[in-house]
């Protein structure tokens, strides 16, 4: 099977949509002349022209709001918000408009909008540029939140997002763009709300999304050498959320660890852990363990930033501490 990196997989999905559906256009900051802050849309402007690939003013609220309006007007916009940190400036349009228009109009209005944005830390970009707001977004009724961790899912989920009639937040982790993997030539989609068992195991279930699904997988490999068999689940989408796959695994392993990058306090791991407790309490040997980002603004210095984001060592240390595995 051909291999590609996440950046290429996303570009492939975008190209397909632009090619196959005239209603699709892209709008965002520096996606055209500059080729995208993370080079995802390099060459797109030349390929598809100014009508389909629009360099927007730096105005996040207007970008999202205009994309909502365009979606109402019969188009299928793909808005790029350069990073999720800047999405805070468009939060009102996302939460009070995109997410609610179908409901408030009682189904008269559809907002088939994909908001692509770059998430996460680890690049030493400092406190304002290293955040992960997926947990917030996944709590908003009316939004869907997609968090791929590999090229296959990135393309498959993007295809699903682009054919969805509701607003979708498509969150791309900056440190995953260069990650490679197999991507079939034949058309496929990855449906929303279907977590993937990335690795089977018996002793403990590790649940992650976005880059932390990869970290969980690496931790599981290392645990294997230490005599612990970990099952790893990549949630793929936070909303819809596939708890069935998680619960099935936890009922088998009796132990669960949820890994995420956003601040530990108030993160989405609390939601997942709560649902596990609510629905599989009697199967559990002990409480679900949450491994999350440290509750500090992300520091710039490398040796500090390393402490803030969960990594293989810290995941294993937590498993060791809390589960005694």
């Amino acid at each position, binding site marked *: 099977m051909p291999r590609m990196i996440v950046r290429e997989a996303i570009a492939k999905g975008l190209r397909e949509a632009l090619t196959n559906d005239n209603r699709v256009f892209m709008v965002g900051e520096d996606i055209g002349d500059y080729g995208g802050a993370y080079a995802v849309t390099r060459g797109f402007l030349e390929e598809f022209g100014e009508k389909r690939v629009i360099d927007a003013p730096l105005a996040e609220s*207007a970008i999202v*709001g*205009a994309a909502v309006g365009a979606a109402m*007007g*019969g188009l299928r916009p793909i808005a790029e918000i350069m990073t999720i940190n800047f999405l805070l400036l468009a939060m009102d349009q996302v939460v009070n*408009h995109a997410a609610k228009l179908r409901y*408030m109009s*009682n189904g008269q*209005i559809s907002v088939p909008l994909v908001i692509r944005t770059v998430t996460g830390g680890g690049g030493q970009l400092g406190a304002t540029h290293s955040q992960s707001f997926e947990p917030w977004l996944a709590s908003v009724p009316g939004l869907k939140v997609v968090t791929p961790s590999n090229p296959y899912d990135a393309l498959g989920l993007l295809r699903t997002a682009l054919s969805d009639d509701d607003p979708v937040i498509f969150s791309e982790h900056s440190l995953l763009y260069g990650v490679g993997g197999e991507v079939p030539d034949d058309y496929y989609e990855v449906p929303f709300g279907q977590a993937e068992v990335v690795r089977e195991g018996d002793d403990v279930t590790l649940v992650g999304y976005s880059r932390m699904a990869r970290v969980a997988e690496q931790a599981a490999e290392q645990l294997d050498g230490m005599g612990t068999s970990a099952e790893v689940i990549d949630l793929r989408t936070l909303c819809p959320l596939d708890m069935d796959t998680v619960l099935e695994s936890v009922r088998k392993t009796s132990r669960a660890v949820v890994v995420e990058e956003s601040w530990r306090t108030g993160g989405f791991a609390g939601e997942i852990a709560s649902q596990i407790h609510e629905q599989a309490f009697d199967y559990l040997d002990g409480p679900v363990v949450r491994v999350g980002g440290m509750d500090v603004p992300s520091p710039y210095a490398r040796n500090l930033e390393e402490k803030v984001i969960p990594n293989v060592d810290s995941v294993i240390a937590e498993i060791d501490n809390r589960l005694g595995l």
Partner: protein
Amino acid sequence: MNSAFNIDADTAIELHRLMVLIRRFEEESSRLYMQGKIRGFLHLYIGQEAVAAGAIPCLRDDDYVVSHYRDHGHALAKGMDPRAVMAELCGKATGSSGGKGGSMHLFDVSKGFMGGYAIVGGQLPIAAGLAHAIKYREEDRVVLCFFGDGAVNEGEFHESINLAAVWKLPVLFLLENNLYGMGTHVEKTHALGKDIYLSADAYGLPSAQIDGMDLMAVRDTTLKALERIRAGGGPVFIEAMTYRFRGHSVADPSNYRDSKEVSFWQVRDPIARFQELALENEVMTGDTVKGINEEVDRTVAKAVRFAEESDAPDPNDIADNVYA
């Protein structure tokens, strides 16, 4: 000074009827609110009728209107069924949004009424986006976007007007400057005070300030603006100076306005003024007026009855339309 009275009798009657309809509809809304049948926030359009009635009938059926939370007048002018609007205000299943939206969130896509938006300024980028879709799809349509003087100070105003200007979008920005954003006077909050239309220069947009109590002025200026927009000339900005005769919402006793100011505007009542002109110009008679009033009374009474007699929404449908 009044604009030339250059409309025929049918049009005059239609527009007068529309203003009276809005006025009477709002009076009944207010009454139902006092009875507890309408709840939440209720923002009346009384006093500003000439803006909606002057501008919206200049549109074609498939043009879009985008509004804010003070949206009943705009909705009725764009052809929404008074019964569906009143039922929505009363939170009934027969309401335009099945009772899920409420007064501030009216929608009728079939009529091109693309929404009442309750976050001040939130409708502006959406209007730009609708206009973008029109241009992109090469449709022969325009967007008419209403907003208030308070909204002008929101960042989204700036972002949206700039976007519309740079992209040369077919949108008419129609500011209803009623001098107050809730209870704060515009001179306290905007650098240009009462002359907000001047800020259109910062985006290279043609703009005009007009008497929003004069239906003919609103109509003439709107028609000219629409012509320009339809010809591909890009967005236009109109500031209509107007006044709400009631409080910001029905809960507001409006203590922050002095009675001299209120009377200054009340003598400019857009309905009385238009009626006088129409009589003067002999396109309406006293009988026409009476006929219109009675007809509107019946329409509104029917709307109220319809709303009152309709069922509340079915709680089993509560989670419908969160997603497609």
